[in-house]
């Protein structure tokens, strides 16, 4: 490995990421290259801690000893990962972990003393690197802050373990370097290109009458739209707002009624025997079949649409919540009973939080079917709203506006389900953290 490659590798690692280029090259001069075979032990716990390691390729299993209070002692370090940080800790000169190569591994090692001496010349940069070491030890190796705080510091400003923000920024920059965002953009690119080519360039037979990409875009962003609807016209937002308002009301009612119903259906066998058969007979009736009854039952144009939207959401929420209760492991309720919880306390402390993952899956489905039935309802019975826009644009031969309505629906629908997912993540921190550790 030459000096440039070493500097590049340093640049990819969490502690050295922000170090300026010339300095990285100087640090790279301190580094030695090594390669290991699968199964090689790099060091044992208790060995003298001389060097810091940065993985170039391969994978290293890093197991912190019992008694160091890492909440997660096992970690696999891959390319760009740094271990052997005991070599830069102030009060620690022995290895706290055992490291074994899981495959052929190439890495560079830098002597801890030499690194620290190097930074004495540039204390500001040194402090930044060391505080990033501390953050890494605390956040990625799950070591207590006291341990992480033992990195050396070179200026008068005390070193602190950074908050989640610098870690988030690091993750974000890693994400931008990963192929993910570009794959996503490629996906959209292919969709748009296909549309453009099929309609405007190749003029494929079935696509001849379809509005093309450029026509739709011109109309959508035009200050003076041919068919009267673009991002500059107030009506556009009025339609969006009317649809969103209907969704909000229907989704709110469906959640407020569906969640408790689902919880009780799952919890009480007797209640379930009364209610579930009725529920199961009504559920398969398609929402569209309810349209005439909805119009007969409710006055005006607003309530029938909200009713239809509500109905679909309500089934999804109630059913998934019920399933959520059924999947809760019985030992949780039993453990709670052992610990002295009453029946009501078991409901509050075990059934409700235990059903939550399924419940939020239900809400996720519920918001999706809400948009589905909203558009169906608006097409038949609405005044205003995105479904109404699509339908009237069709009868009045305003084809580009149809597509504007559709794209807008896609965006608003995506935002609404993202909001539901965020609410779920916020309420289930335990699950987010658990899944994050599983690397999902």
């Amino acid at each position: 490995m030459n000096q440039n490659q070493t500097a590049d590798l340093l640049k990819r690692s969490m502690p050295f990421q922000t170090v300026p280029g010339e300095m990285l090259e100087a640090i790279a001069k301190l580094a030695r290259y090594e390669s290991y075979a699968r199964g090689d032990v790099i060091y044992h716990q208790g060995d003298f801690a001389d060097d810091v390691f940065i993985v170039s390729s391969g994978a290293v299993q890093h197991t912190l000893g019992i008694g160091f209070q890492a909440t997660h002692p096992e970690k696999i370090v891959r390319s760009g990962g740094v271990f052997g940080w005991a070599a830069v800790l102030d009060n620690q000169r022995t290895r706290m972990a055992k490291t074994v190569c899981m495959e052929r591994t190439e890495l560079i090692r830098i002597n801890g003393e030499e690194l620290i001496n190097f930074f004495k010349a540039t204390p500001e940069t040194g402090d930044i690197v060391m505080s990033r070491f501390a953050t890494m030890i605390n956040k990625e190796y799950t070591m207590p802050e006291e341990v992480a705080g033992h990195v050396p510091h070179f200026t008068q400003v005390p070193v602190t373990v950074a908050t989640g923000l610098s870690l988030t920024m690091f993750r974000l920059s890693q994400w931008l370097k990963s192929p993910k965002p570009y794959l996503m953009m490629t996906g959209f690119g292919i969709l748009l290109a296909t549309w453009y080519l099929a309609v405007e360039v190749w003029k494929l037979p079935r696509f001849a009458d379809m509005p093309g990409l450029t026509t739709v875009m011109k109309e959508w962003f035009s200050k003076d739209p041919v068919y009267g609807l673009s991002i500059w016209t107030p009506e556009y937002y009025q339609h969006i707002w009317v649809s969103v308002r209907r969704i909000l009301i229907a989704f709110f009612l469906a959640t407020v009624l569906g969640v408790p119903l689902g919880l009780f259906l799952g919890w009480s066998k007797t209640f379930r025997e009364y209610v579930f058969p009725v529920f199961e007979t009504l559920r398969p009736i398609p929402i569209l079949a309810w349209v005439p009854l909805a119009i007969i039952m409710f006055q005006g144009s607003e309530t029938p649409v909200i009713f239809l939207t509500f109905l679909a959401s309500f089934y999804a929420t109630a059913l998934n919540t019920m399933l959520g209760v059924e999947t809760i492991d019985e030992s949780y309720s039993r453990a709670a009973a052992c610990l002295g919880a009453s029946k009501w306390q078991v409901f509050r402390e075990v059934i409700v939080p235990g059903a939550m993952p399924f419940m939020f899956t239900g809400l996720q489905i519920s918001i999706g079917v809400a948009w589905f039935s909203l558009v169906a309802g608006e097409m038949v019975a609405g005044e205003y709203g995105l479904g109404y826009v699509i339908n009237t644009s069709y009868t009045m031969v305003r084809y580009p506006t149809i597509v504007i309505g559709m794209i807008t629906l896609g965006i608003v629908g995506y935002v609404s389900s993202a909001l539901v997912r965020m609410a779920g993540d916020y309420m289930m921190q335990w699950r987010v953290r658990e899944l994050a550790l599983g690397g999902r």
Partner: protein
Amino acid sequence: MSAVMQDLKVPPQAGKAGGALKGAIRIEDVVKIYDPEGAAVMAVDHCSLDIPAGEICMIVGPSGCGKTTLLNAIAGFHSITSGKIYLDNELLCGPPEKPMAQPGADRIVVFQNGALFPWKSNIDNVAFGPMMQGKLSKKEIYEKARSIMADAGLSGTEHNFPGEVSSGLRRRVEIVRALMNEPKVLLFDEPYRALDSLTKSVMHEALLEIYYKNKVTIFFITHDLEEAIFLGHRLVIMTSRPCKPKKIIDVDIPHPRDYSVLTSTRYRQLMDETVELVHEEAKKAFSAGEKEG
């Protein structure tokens, strides 16, 4: 080893001798038949067993013989068909008047797959029992929880969720959650079954250390003879289904014990004595299974 552990030699007869210890269990002629009207599976057959207070009683038996059934009856998770179970001479259950015990914080179960609430942080889990019982103020409860967790080497993990810590730590939190309630009896249903042998050995020593400090009665189900002899004052070997004690063996290796016990001659003698007995029952259970299905 700490000084506390040195002067604590709990003999097998501790409960009978010392009046201070609580948590003696008496199982009298207990029968449990599942689904008496239909398939009528007899899981426990006229089982009697006396466990003195403060004893570690290890229950060993072939798979499906009815060990969990017996434990659930003591815990109060289901009814028994006939017989009686007492805790410190108080009737827990005894049909027809009282077919099912009331679950309570004096007998706490540590489950096979672990039952820490994943949606509560470790310290909230530990504080759960007293919070539900509402006997102490919230402040007192959390102070106690913090100190009891520190004693068990769990400082620093209070605000982690169970899913974030290793499985060995999780088990320790679960035992500490039980101890928060000062129970008389701990009921273990193969708690270490899923752990690797290294973590297991650490857990065994940790459990003994906790036991030497707290002297509760321990009813411990296991498949693992090594574990059974290492931990127990007595070994109860169960017959294949329906279960009742086939043979009770005193493990006369003095407490406190540590892992050097595993290399002692007495340990190996006991191992030789019991392996044959257990194997015999396992074979019976296996061939019974062949016939049934």
